[in-house]
């Protein structure tokens, strides 16, 4: 069982409280600094408690510091007494609250937090003795023949070695202590000094550590409460209080991020920032590269003509740019794409912290980020592409690896084996971002609107923490959520009149194509406008579907499509509707019974069915919203049944409409929203599509 020591460091009448798992390391560290003296306050196994106590003690010390006129001895005694009293009182209060809050669930058997307040200086923490012994054993084993006179020196060496190892290998992460031991396999001889080395880094202020579940007393006039917060996922509502055998006392764990290992009060969360600095400051307002060079990059990317001849130009280009060119992309941008890509690239060196690329479905948005990535890589930074879904990670990784052939691209998701490796380009699911700490200089968030990003505080927190201070976020979306639009799109102003007052208001209907913090790509790469959906209101829609009564708009659309040999997507709100719609269609189109199929998320044959639909084995596919993204069929139409359902929000309907007409040879297609009741989402979706078309035709 690991024990933590809370001690006070005092020097020239200023004192501060610190925590260490290995007291000896701290002793050595402070001994290097003249005049510092250490006084142990107490020991505990509960990290959460001892961190809360440190805060409390530090508060107390701040008050004491100002009291002058006392002789040195007395001052010290008074300070320590105060600190100890504060620690003891706080522990009591925490325990009183803990017992009160767990009385009902524990059937009267409640446990509490333990803190040993040190009464004398002499007794050292258990951990220190253990550490000493383990290091000595280790050294004896290693250096049996050598003399042991330089034992002290070697210990110091070992700790330093560990610290360097951790600093170079585990940087940019926020991990549970158990997880960091994965690296030990690479360096087995470091095991004894692992925690000591880490503590050394903390003292050097190159790392930070926290209890993975934090504890504090929330005071209010009505009643005081214990407040637990998960340090990894920052959630407060998902903490469960339990009795724990790891620390042998009261504890709490977080079940929100349980799939990544248990966050508990007694488990440290290790945060090691990435020390990599950009070769040029990100905040420089002036263009950081010579204009000529910028132009080369721009011209190299924008006009198709130059790009086609890129390969022939490779020689001279290399001569011109002394730094390596990472991007080897042979495609070309349309003029619109080129301008958006260039804006995204210049954003990287600008002052603004975030940028939104709003590109309609089928605009080819992945390519738009290449120049920005190239820019940050050239500056010596790390890039991460975060996306909510694992299949997107798997699909994106080879594409990115192809255009950046000199850099290894890591694909990180729950079951990925590359989780613990390090590279300059990382493609990760948003969940795995919780394991990063100040690691990336640029984070590109793909499909901001998609589940589970939408409104999930935990993931925003994760992204924020993964950025180095001053890092940049680039959002990529076809349907950005409203709060992001308000935040990043600079809408025009308008003057309204209320009574006799004139008021300036944001005019959300005037949508500028680009600004400091956003750029819109309103047209698809082939330049044709997006197909605009139609809304048809059918009374008693569900009843008609269930009773197989004719629904004219639906049947007309299906007949037209079948005549023109096009495929049809039918979206339903709930899985239970799939069989209903299947029987309906099979009854009305008896000639195509074998070519009508349904698929849902939990379908074991899901991939097979989608593949068969792609190969035109099926003509109609009834599906839930799982296929709203990703699947693209060249000649297809789209029907949404019961579009008023809550699951079809504006973003989701725009995405569904975006399935249609994506290939250049058939840029049109029918999109039909059937509603049974009045609904706003379909209308909003149509308005958004029309607005994009209007912008695109400018």
């Amino acid at each position, binding site marked *: 069982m690991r024990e933590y020591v809370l001690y006070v460091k005092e020097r020239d009448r200023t004192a501060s409280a610190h925590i260490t798992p290995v007291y000896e390391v701290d002793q050595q560290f402070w001994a290097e600094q003249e005049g510092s003296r250490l006084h142990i306050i107490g020991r505990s196994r509960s990290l959460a408690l001892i961190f809360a106590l440190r805060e409390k003690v530090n508060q107390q010390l701040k008050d004491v510091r100002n009291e002058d006129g006392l002789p040195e001895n007395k001052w010290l005694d008074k300070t320590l007494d105060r600190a100890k009293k504060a620690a003891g009182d706080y522990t009591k209060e925490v325990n009183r609250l803990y017992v009160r809050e767990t009385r009902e669930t524990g059937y009267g058997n409640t446990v509490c937090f333990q803190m040993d307040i040190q009464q004398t200086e002499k007794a050292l923490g258990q951990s220190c003795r253990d550490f000493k012994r383990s290091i000595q054993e280790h050294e004896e084993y290693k250096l049996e023949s050598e003399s042991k006179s330089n034992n002290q020196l070697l210990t110091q060496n070992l700790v330093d070695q560990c610290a360097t190892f951790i600093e170079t290998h585990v940087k940019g992460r926020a991990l549970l202590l158990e997880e960091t031991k994965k690296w030990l396999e690479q360096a087995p001889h470091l095991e004894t000094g692992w925690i000591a080395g880490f503590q050394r880094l903390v003292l050097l202020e190159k790392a930070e550590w926290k209890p993975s579940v934090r504890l504090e007393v929330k005071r209010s006039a009505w009643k005081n409460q214990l407040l637990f917060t998960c340090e990894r996922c920052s959630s407060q509502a998902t903490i469960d209080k339990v009795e*724990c055998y790891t620390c042998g006392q009261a504890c709490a764990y977080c079940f929100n991020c349980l799939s990544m290992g248990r966050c508990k009060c007694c488990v440290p969360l290790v945060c090691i920032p990435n020390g990599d600095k950009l070769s040029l400051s990100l905040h420089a307002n002036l263009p950081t590269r010579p204009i000529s060079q910028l132009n080369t990059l721009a011209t190299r990317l924008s006009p198709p003509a130059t790009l086609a001849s890129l390969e022939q130009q490779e020689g001279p280009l290399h001569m011109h740019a002394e730094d390596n060119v990472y991007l080897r992309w042979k495609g070309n941008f349309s003029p619109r794409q080129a301008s958006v890509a260039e804006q995204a690239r210049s954003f990287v060196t600008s002052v603004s912290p975030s940028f939104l690329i709003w590109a309609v479905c089928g605009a080819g948005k992945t390519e738009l980020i290449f120049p920005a990535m190239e820019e940050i890589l050239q500056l010596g930074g790390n890039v991460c592409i975060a996306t909510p879904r694992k299949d997107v990670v798997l699909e994106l990784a080879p594409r990115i690896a192809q255009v950046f052939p000199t850099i290894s691209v890591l694909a990180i998701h729950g079951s990925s084996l590359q989780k613990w490796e390090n590279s300059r380009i990382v493609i990760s699911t948003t969940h795995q971002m919780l394991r990063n700490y100040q690691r990336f200089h640029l984070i590109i968030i793909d499909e901001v609107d998609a589940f589970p990003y939408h409104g999930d505080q935990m993931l925003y927190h994760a992204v924020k923490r993964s950025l180095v201070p001053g890092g940049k976020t680039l959002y990529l979306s076809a349907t950005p959520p409203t709060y992001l639009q308000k935040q990043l799109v600079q809408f025009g102003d308008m003057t309204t009149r209320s009574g006799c007052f004139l008021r300036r208001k944001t005019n959300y209907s005037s949508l500028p194509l680009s600004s400091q913090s956003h750029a819109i790509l309103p047209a698809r790469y082939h330049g044709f406008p997006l197909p605009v959906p139609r809304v048809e209101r059918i009374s008693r829609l569900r009843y008609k579907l269930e009773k197989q009564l004719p629904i004219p708009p639906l049947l007309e659309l299906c007949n037209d499509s079948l005549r023109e040999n096009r495929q049809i997507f039918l979206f339903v709100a709930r899985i239970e509707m799939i069989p209903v719609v299947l029987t309906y269609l099979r009854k009305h189109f008896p000639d195509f019974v074998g070519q009508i199929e349904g698929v849902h998320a939990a379908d074991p044959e899901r991939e097979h069915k989608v593949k068969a639909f792609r190969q035109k084995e099926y003509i109609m596919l009834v599906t839930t919203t799982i296929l709203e993204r990703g699947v693209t069929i060249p000649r297809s139409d789209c029907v949404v049944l019961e579009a008023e359902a809550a699951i079809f929000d504006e973003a989701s309907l725009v995405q569904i409409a975006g399935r249609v007409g994506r290939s250049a040879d058939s840029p049109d297609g029918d999109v039909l929203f059937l509603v049974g009741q009045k609904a706003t989402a379909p209308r909003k979706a149509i308005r958004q599509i029309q607005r994009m078309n209007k912008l695109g035709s400018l």
Partner: protein
Amino acid sequence: MRSGRKTELLVDRLPTYFTSDQYPVCYQLFQSMELCETCIDKLPIISLFSCVQCGRDERVGGTSHCRDCVKREQQVERTTTIHNRSVLRYEEWTKELISQWKYRGDERLTKLCSTLLQIGFIRYYSNERFDCISYVPMHAGRLQERGFNQAEVLAQALSIKLKVPCRPLLERTKETTKQSKQKGRTNRFFSMQDAFQLRVEASQDFSVPRNTWWMRPFTKTRRGMRILLIDDIYTTGATLQACADVLLSSELWGDHEVRSMTLAR
């Protein structure tokens, strides 16, 4: 509407497993569990035709024992097996439940698992009277690593519900390799042989129960004790048998009888 579907499923499924006097209580318990319809539908409850010895959901034709138990009977050197009952078959659903609960450490599931165990108790042992509930201990090292002992948690929850004292009678002295990694049944029996021992404090455990005014006081007047051992999974029975052997060979309280109950079999 949703709970209606759940009720429908329960009314449909439960009478095949429970007798008419167990049914009302068990129905209430099932209703109180936080399970969705799909889970209720999948729930692999052990059927009535299970082995009378080890509780496995299997009977060799004509007998009332499972294949393993029949084989054991035929062996020259007969090994004994503990009288065991289990609640669920160890299938996909149960595996998922237990791995989420035990290995991932989702202790919210404790309530669900203990209710399932309580249902098992009502089903199998409601006519029997136990003096004490105990559980299969974990090695100190592993316990520290995991943070909780799933068998202990189950036993304690059951103890509170049945008002029978729960005592940690045993301790684990040997860290055995993970059961799933061991080859062969006999190997497992051997490796388990002296993995457990009686706790030194075991005799004191029965003096005065702590803070348990509602528990039946233990009286020494009876000749032997009836102990119910709890564990989460019964794989070969080696663990439970080893525990029972230790309890039976101890001469602290005269002739005992040891039964066991597990969540999965």
